[in-house]
């Protein structure tokens, strides 16, 4: 497989013990001291190298236990029990669930795809991205075996001004149309999260990751200092309005990001930040497709739809990000400009599947923000927002470790993207964009399948 399709991962151990879903409660009182104690028969040997992590006061048993319940069910005095860990339930929130967060931790540590046995344990469906399923191919359509390296699946996408055609000069050389395009090998741009207990050194770590992944990192303008010049080719400074610091950044970075308000003030794209091509960030609000078209008419070709942290519209939490992406994507098609515009989306992209699903809904690529913070063991507790200390001291992490964990996470996501695309039989991520016909939506399927099943006649009851 060509080098550009490979993300090299390497285990990056956690600094803090991950929070586990359940813990072991093993009473000593009443113990018969059996000659062959059930604890000695644990096939995972969790009791053999049991120890207390003095730093965190955590018993290693809780983290090593694999929940087989054999000791629980075999102790003659019933002294061993499992119990749900209240700390686990407290991790994250309703959107950034404990399951998502702990899964991100393990992917950032190992760089591996989460694999488990015994079928799917989760809810039937949910809101937003959980209300859609991706397609697969069988018998009459080929799949692509990208994961075992037997076929190449490209996850590369293009960001920028895409010309409608290319021209050649008299010598047969290509014109300059493609100079405004940045190709990234993953449909993912990293982005500094809106909160977190990180420092400039953490940002340096993320910049290192972006460089190694050959993708981009969007950073607040103030963070893009000269000390990060080594990474300038991978940075997108986010500039505040007013004033635009256009002159300072011109030429140094592949692109800059400005807010829709700044863009609206410009007569046309060239005047917004002279000499640099621009990503315009639009808060995802109702009616966004109209505003998007206005910007496109001014010549802006890279639009960023910024949803809430929970993957919804900013002004209406009942509308999911995916619907906003769809609305803009379809409007651009309707106006015959879709191929000239790059659509980026952000907000609530928390799992690898969200990348594929956002693209199926019409995005060219996504921004990934909080997952690269969760990769650093963040628990989304938001203590930092209140000015309190970080329980996992993200600020103390070395840039090298930050980079490694972020690369591992993206490596795991890349492989998961290959799984989804391979099953669909799609071998180019650019073809994933807008392939809504290769997905199944809850709102289409559920009502059409079950909508008529609502009649309960007199004299009948439900079971």
């Amino acid at each position, binding site marked *: 497989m060509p080098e550009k399709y490979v993300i090299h991962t390497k285990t990056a151990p956690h600094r803090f013990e991950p929070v586990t879903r359940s813990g072991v409660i093993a009473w000593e009182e009443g113990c018969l001291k059996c000659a062959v104690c059930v604890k000695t028969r644990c*096939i*995972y040997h969790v009791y053999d190298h049991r120890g207390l992590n003095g730093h965190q006061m955590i018993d290693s048993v809780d983290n090593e236990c*694999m*929940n*087989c*319940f*054999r000791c*629980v*069910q075999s*102790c003659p005095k019933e002294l061993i*029990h*499992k119990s*749900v860990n209240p700390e686990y339930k407290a991790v994250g929130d309703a959107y950034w669930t404990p399951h998502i967060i702990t899964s991100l931790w393990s992917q950032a540590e190992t760089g591996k*795809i*989460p*694999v*488990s*046995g*015994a*079928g*799917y*344990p*989760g*809810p039937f*469906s949910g809101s937003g991205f959980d209300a859609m*399923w*991706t*397609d*697969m*191919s069988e018998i*009459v359509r*080929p*799949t692509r*075996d990208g994961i*075992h390296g037997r076929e190449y699946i490209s996850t590369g996408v293009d960001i920028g001004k895409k010309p409608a055609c290319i021209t050649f000069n008299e010598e047969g050389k290509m014109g300059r149309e493609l100079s405004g395009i940045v190709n990234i090998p993953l449909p993912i741009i990293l982005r500094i999260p809106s909160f977190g207990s990180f420092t400039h050194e953490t940002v340096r770590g993320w910049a290192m990751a972006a460089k190694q992944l050959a993708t981009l990192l969007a950073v607040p303008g103030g963070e893009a200092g000269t000390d990060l010049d080594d990474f300038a080719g991978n940075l997108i400074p986010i500039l505040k309005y007013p004033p635009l610091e256009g002159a300072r950044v011109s030429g140094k970075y592949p692109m800059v990001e400005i807010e829709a308000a700044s863009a609206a003030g410009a007569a046309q794209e060239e005047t917004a930040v002279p000499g640099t091509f621009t990503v315009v960030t639009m808060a995802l609000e109702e009616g966004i497709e109209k505003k998007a078209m206005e910007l496109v008419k001014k010549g802006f070709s890279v639009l960023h739809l910024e949803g809430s942290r929970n993957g919804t519209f900013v002004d209406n939490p009942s509308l999911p990000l995916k619907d906003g992406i769809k609305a803009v994507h379809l409007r651009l098609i309707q106006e015959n400009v879709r191929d000239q515009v790059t659509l980026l989306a952000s907000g609530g992209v928390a799992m*690898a*599947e969200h990348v594929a*699903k956002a693209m199926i809904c019409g995005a060219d690529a996504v921004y990934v923000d909080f997952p690269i913070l969760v990769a650093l063991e963040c628990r989304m507790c938001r203590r930092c927002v209140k000015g309190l200390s970080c329980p996992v001291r993200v600020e103390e992490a070395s840039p090298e470790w930050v980079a490694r964990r972020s690369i591992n996470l993206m490596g795991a996501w890349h492989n*998961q993207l290959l799984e*989804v695309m*391979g*099953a669909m039989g799609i071998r180019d991520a650019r073809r994933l964009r807008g392939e809504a*016909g*290769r997905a*199944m939506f809850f709102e289409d*399927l*559920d009502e059409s*399948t*079950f*909508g*008529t*099943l*609502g*009649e*309960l006649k007199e*004299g*009948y*009851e*439900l*079971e």
Partner: protein
Amino acid sequence: MSSRTDFRYPEVVETPSRFRNPIGKYRLHRTDDCIGCGRCVEICPYGVHVAKRGVMLVKHAYRCVGLDCVEPCHKACPQDALSLKRNLDFEALGDFRWTADLLASNWHMAEFGRVPVAGLEYRTGNSGGGFDKLRLILPKGGSGAAPETGEREVDLSLELNRRNDGAHRVRIQLPFYGGGMSFGSVSISTMLSRARAAEALGTFCCTGEGGFPDELIPYSDHMITQVATGLFGVREETIQRVKIVEFKYAQGAKPGLGGHLLGDKVTPSVARMREAVVGYPLFSPFPFHSVYSVEDHKKHVDWIKAMNPKALVSVKVSTPTDVDMVAVGSYYAGAHIIHLDGSYGGTGAAPDIAKKNIAMPIEYAIPKVHRFLCEEGVRDKITVIASGGIRTPHDIAKIIALGADGVCIGTADLVALECVRCHNCESGRGCARGIATTDPELAGLVDQDWGSRRIVNMYLAWIEELVRILRRLGMEDVQELVGRTDCLVHLDYLKENS
């Protein structure tokens, strides 16, 4: 197979847990204040308390129905020596699809051969959609209990060959058979437990992809052998040995992705069976690289028919958007059974992203395929089997009402063998409970006599429950239920006035 009438289901043989401490919903604590009056032993209908040499013991706490109990011992105790508590272990078990209640009720059925009378929700899980939001509509009043005299027995049997093409006539005595689990992914004891249960109940069980171990030869008349993309263990004699051959094009747990047996599980016996090297991981590719059209697929079916002309051919596929086209294509290629495996089931290791996201749940696929085959005019020429997340007799009734003829069961069999769904089937030496492992020491934890009795018991409880449901619906044959969506409501669409 036996005819429609002379088959008799086996009797229940009570088969308790193989562990000292079965897990129940409640715990009962007895203090030293107990005077051994025996009141608790006397009143408990579930045998929780046992008197031993004048001392009262909480022997079977897992059978306690807790708050559902009509005459609670802890209230009746004259000494106030008993207290009832929730069992914390129970709360650490289970998930949205297989709640702790569902696990415990299937364990109960595997032990006693009947559904739990109280204390456990044994009909639905907590996934918030599909089966868990569908309800059967039954006429009020009727208990569904067996009538005293006069009425005919309810017939649960299902003829699998509807083509009249000279192939075997195969009638299974209940509308479900065992899904494919390969030697390698599960132990030989697990395979034998399932095969023996299938024989006792007059149905089938599938070898999965991984060969046909010699130990299973005595059960050949009740085995389905699988031909999957890796062609592991497929030989002419294994095809000729059976009445049903299953082509696995895809599987619900990882639709569109190949199989993967980790190196640790490729023990010498597995390697021999699969003609592979010990300790090396084995990949089943995806898809069949010999099939890229329905015509290619017909070639596959013809290939089986050349080796075993009387074999029924089952085609196992997953549930993409065009699942209806795949089903009808399979029919025209000569298949007898179209087996749709929905995306939420599966027993083997699979990437989490695939389990959750790729392909649609079986509850959507079956109505779509049923309708399409009806419109095509071939519905009565092919048997439609559903699988992928069917956990209870109620799920079976619901999916049949949505349009399937029968179902395929995998996970529930493992639950009968006391799987706790820890999801670690794939790691290290495999299942710590000896079910999904080829480690000789661990595999020894499951005894096949015990295992087959547990599965038979669970199925007998399911049969009783299905018969009860059909009686209440006024049906004498399970096939009357096929496609009867008027027997269902979905709670999200329940009209207010009804």
